């Protein structure tokens, strides 16, 4: 392979460094109007009065839309596992079609004006009165109301092997610990923005999205339109991390505002607006209990969790998923629980479940190692399973211990004294910690077409999403190799519902999903072109069998006999040849979905597939102030085949930095009295900055997974897993203090 695996510059690099890339709030439209939201200030209740008089009279205001005058919209569809697009609704609220308030921050009015400043000013002038209902908004206080979560096809919420409680009670060594993690928010640097425009009964929307087809389908339902009347355009997405997977109120309300005013409308949420209308990662309370023999072999592993969901929606995170896969305990019990809250729906955020679940599990394993006087890596090695511990399924590929071994060598792990508090540099206490990273691999159906033109160029049309991962670049590399053409000959059209529906950019699945279809389409195309050449009079390939011919240098050849794609198509009088994966009829689509779903389930029954890795961290803790700094980081990963070494490393690093934020600084604070987020800004919510982050060394074993297309496993999420565990373990090694509540802020260390 000429391109796959190489550190190739991303194709959109120039557009992004020169300011030429157009994000969703940057499409110019004549006569553009601007929209601003008014947010509810109570958690639960009903609007009793809404005074928009002064706002309406403000010069420049075009419309003030409330539940009193908004056009009717259809409600969000009920979620249905078999039609994934029904999952697109972030909440079930029919915005501005109801006087009920379900969370503090819910939009209760939209102002549309000639400029953004006028829209915002008028929004401030709207007065709303409410009748308040009792509301559950304090997560800590609601723990007792949690109920067991049900398993679904996509997410397993419980599981057991043997009797873990009894084994725990009998174990010579046992730990039974409680952890909490705070709510955190994605804070992609691009705030959610929408530009919407109606052309008769066609809706055109510019929206940074991780799933343009979902946005299209959802808006079609809400505005009662045929799907093909809605077009969603999203070639550039300014970061997402899960926060742009579902359809949040701003998107729907921008389309509504454009409809009411008959103008193109742009809504750019403020950072506060994002906090109030786009959910974050649920907080969690977790129990991890491990029983072990004197040699460290685990006899019992129990992992349970309590997370929240909003009463109008919310994603249930697979917090205990890591405990299904990581350790070969004789008895295992996992159970996730959920409590409904009168808060904004939480949503998926980078490695939902594994990021916080791995914190609790990996901190407990570390604690057990210290209790037993074993090296934490040695303890892991003694419990490394040959098959999936919970159900005995085979691993398709797993080099977890190899990651630990290489990491330990590189990081100088063996040289550290195991005694906590034993390393010091002046006032800085030094500690080293380690943890496992783990994220399941997924693959979903993806449609696309590949077209070869008579000028030798290749066009891939595919509604994939590019939030920064380098997907389009990776797809070009793979296609160029598959067809043996130069990468410069390949163009990828993406991020648009005018293209074939691809798949969601989530669960680190996009590259694997698209790769499978792309390879299939390229093979089809190759056959079509060869058949064409074979049949064309005068062709040097006439009469040959495919097996006699190799594709190389942008053509098909048998030794020196053969010709370029350009010549093949010209000779045959064809302007282009196209291959397609995925049906273009509704019936065909349904058949495709059923087929791929059953394939998916069959695959899941046979294999456990995942990316994994070892996170190594060194911290410095100020002995006087408790300030914690990360001084060194090494992550060694098993992520199957790496398609682009340049973009892959940054994906992993970005994940690690997000994990450091989760561990040390990030926390969305919800007022326990009224459910209002009190730190809805980047000045009060602290994402790690340049000066917080040391050199982060990232390596991968680059060993393809035999059961995945091209061996690709997915790389976007595994980086964040294990990070908080490694930090907490390093903090213990530095200070002798076990901090079991994230984030590890300095007050907890004093």
């Amino acid at each position: 392979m000429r391109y796959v695996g190489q550190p190739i510059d991303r194709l959109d690099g120039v557009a992004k460094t020169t300011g030429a890339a157009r994000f969703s709030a940057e499409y110019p439209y004549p006569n553009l109007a601007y929209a601003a939201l008014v947010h509810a200030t109570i958690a639960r209740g009903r609007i009793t009065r809404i005074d928009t008089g002064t706002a309406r009279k403000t010069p420049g205001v075009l419309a003030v839309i409330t539940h009193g005058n908004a056009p009717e919209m259809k409600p969000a569809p009920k979620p249905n596992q078999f039609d994934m697009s029904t999952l697109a609704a972030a909440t079930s609220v029919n915005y501005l079609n109801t006087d009920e308030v379900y969370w503090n921050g819910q939009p209760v009015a939209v102002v549309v004006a000639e400029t953004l400043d006028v829209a915002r000013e008028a929004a401030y002038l709207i007065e709303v009165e409410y009748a308040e209902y009792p509301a559950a908004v304090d997560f800590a206080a609601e723990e007792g109301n949690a109920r067991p979560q049900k398993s679904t096809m996509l997410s397993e919420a419980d599981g057991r092997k043997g009797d873990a409680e009894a084994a725990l009670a009998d174990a010579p060594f046992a730990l039974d610990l409680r952890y909490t993690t705070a709510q955190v928010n994605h804070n992609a640097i691009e705030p959610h923005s929408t530009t919407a425009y109606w052309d008769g009964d066609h809706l055109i929307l510019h929206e940074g999205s991780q799933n343009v087809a979902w946005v299209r389908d959802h808006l079609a339902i809400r505005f009662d339109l045929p799907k093909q009347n809605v077009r969603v355009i999203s070639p550039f997405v300014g970061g997402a991390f899960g926060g742009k997977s579902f359809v949040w109120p701003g998107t729907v309300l921008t389309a509504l505002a454009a409809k009411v005013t008959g103008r193109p409308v742009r809504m750019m949420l403020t950072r506060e607006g994002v906090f109030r209308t786009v959910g974050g990662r649920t907080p969690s309370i977790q129990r991890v209990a491990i029983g072990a023999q004197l040699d460290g072999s685990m006899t019992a592993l129990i992992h349970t969790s309590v997370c929240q969901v909003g009463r109008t929606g919310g994603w249930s995170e697979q917090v205990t998923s890591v405990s299904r896969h990581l350790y070969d305990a004789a008895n295992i019990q996992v159970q996730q629980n959920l409590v409904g809250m009168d808060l904004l729906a939480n949503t998926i955020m980078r490695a939902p479940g594994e990021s916080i679940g791995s914190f609790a599990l990996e901190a407990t394993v570390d604690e057990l190692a210290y209790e037993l006087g074993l090296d934490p890596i040695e303890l892991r090695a003694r419990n490394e399973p040959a098959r999936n511990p919970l159900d005995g399924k085979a691993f398709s590929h797993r080099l977890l211990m190899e990651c630990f071994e290489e990491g330990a060598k590189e990081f100088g792990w063996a040289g550290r004294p195991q005694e906590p508090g034993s390393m010091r540099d002046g006032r800085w206490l030094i500690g080293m910690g380690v943890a496992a990273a783990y994220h399941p691999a997924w693959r979903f159906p993806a449609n696309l077409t590949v077209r070869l033109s008579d000028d030798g160029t290749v066009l891939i049309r595919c509604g994939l999403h590019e939030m920064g991962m380098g997907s389009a670049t990776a797809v070009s590399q793979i296609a160029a190799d598959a067809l043996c053409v130069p990468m410069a000959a390949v163009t990828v059209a993406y991020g648009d519902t005018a293209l074939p529906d691809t798949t969601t950019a989530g669960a680190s699945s996009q590259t694997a999903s698209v790769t499978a279809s792309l390879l299939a389409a390229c093979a089809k195309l190759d056959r079509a072109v060869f058949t064409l050449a074979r049949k064309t009079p005068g062709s040097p390939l006439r009469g040959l069998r495919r097996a006699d011919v190799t594709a190389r240098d942008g053509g098909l050849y048998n030794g020196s006999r053969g010709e370029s794609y350009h010549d093949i198509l010209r000779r045959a009088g064809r302007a282009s040849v196209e291959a397609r994966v995925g049906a273009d009829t509704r019936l065909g689509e349904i058949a495709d979905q059923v087929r791929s779903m059953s394939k998916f389930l069959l695959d899941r029954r046979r294999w456990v597939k995942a990316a994994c890795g070892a996170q190594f961290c060194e911290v410095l803790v100020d002995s006087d102030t408790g300030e914690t700094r990360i001084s060194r980081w090494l992550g060694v990963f098993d992520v199957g085949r790496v398609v682009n070494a340049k973009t892959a490393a940054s994906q992993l690093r970005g994940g690690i930095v997000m994990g450091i934020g989760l561990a040390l600084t990030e926390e969305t604070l919800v007022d326990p009295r009224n459910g209002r987020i009190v730190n809805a800004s980047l000045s009060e919510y602290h994402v790690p900055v340049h000066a917080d982050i040391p050199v982060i060394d990232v390596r991968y074993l680059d060993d393809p997974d035999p059961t995945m297309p091209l061996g690709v496993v997915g790389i976007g999420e595994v980086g964040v897993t294990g990070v908080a565990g490694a930090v907490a373990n390093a903090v213990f090694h530095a200070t002798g203090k076990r901090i079991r509540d994230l984030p590890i802020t300095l007050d907890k260390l004093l």
Partner: protein
Amino acid sequence: MRVNVIVNGEAMTADDVWEGESLLYALRERLGLPGAKNACEQGECGSCTVYLDGIPVCACLVAIGQAEGRSVVTVEGLADGESLDEVQRAFVECGAVQCGFCTPGLIVQAHSLIASTSGVPEDAEIREALAGNLCRCTGYEKILDAVRLAAARKAAL
């Protein structure tokens, strides 16, 4: 008011502008220059960084009235036609760009750091200088690589 600003060397005007409107908004919504990004509007993220009379500022914190008659350079003004500035080139080559939303602000800030240092700045200096430019994607490492590379290339010129 009518505002007159020299943007990327070109005299530009906009009419009927409220003088309290931000320079960022005026650039993006009135002058057709959406390169500088809007991500917090409170001087926290650096996405909106532009030069104002040669000094990098958060355009979200500058009222357009304050920019009257002054010179602004945005990310769109750094390349020389088709030929990228060294900083832009280095960002692409080093893989310092992911989603690209923080990139324009970072490039202007890095450009200014390199212009004001002789030779290649120390790592600590770079981290400090760029601490006001948040990036949620890259993990920062490659941005440092890019700044070092661009500085080295500029120093060699």
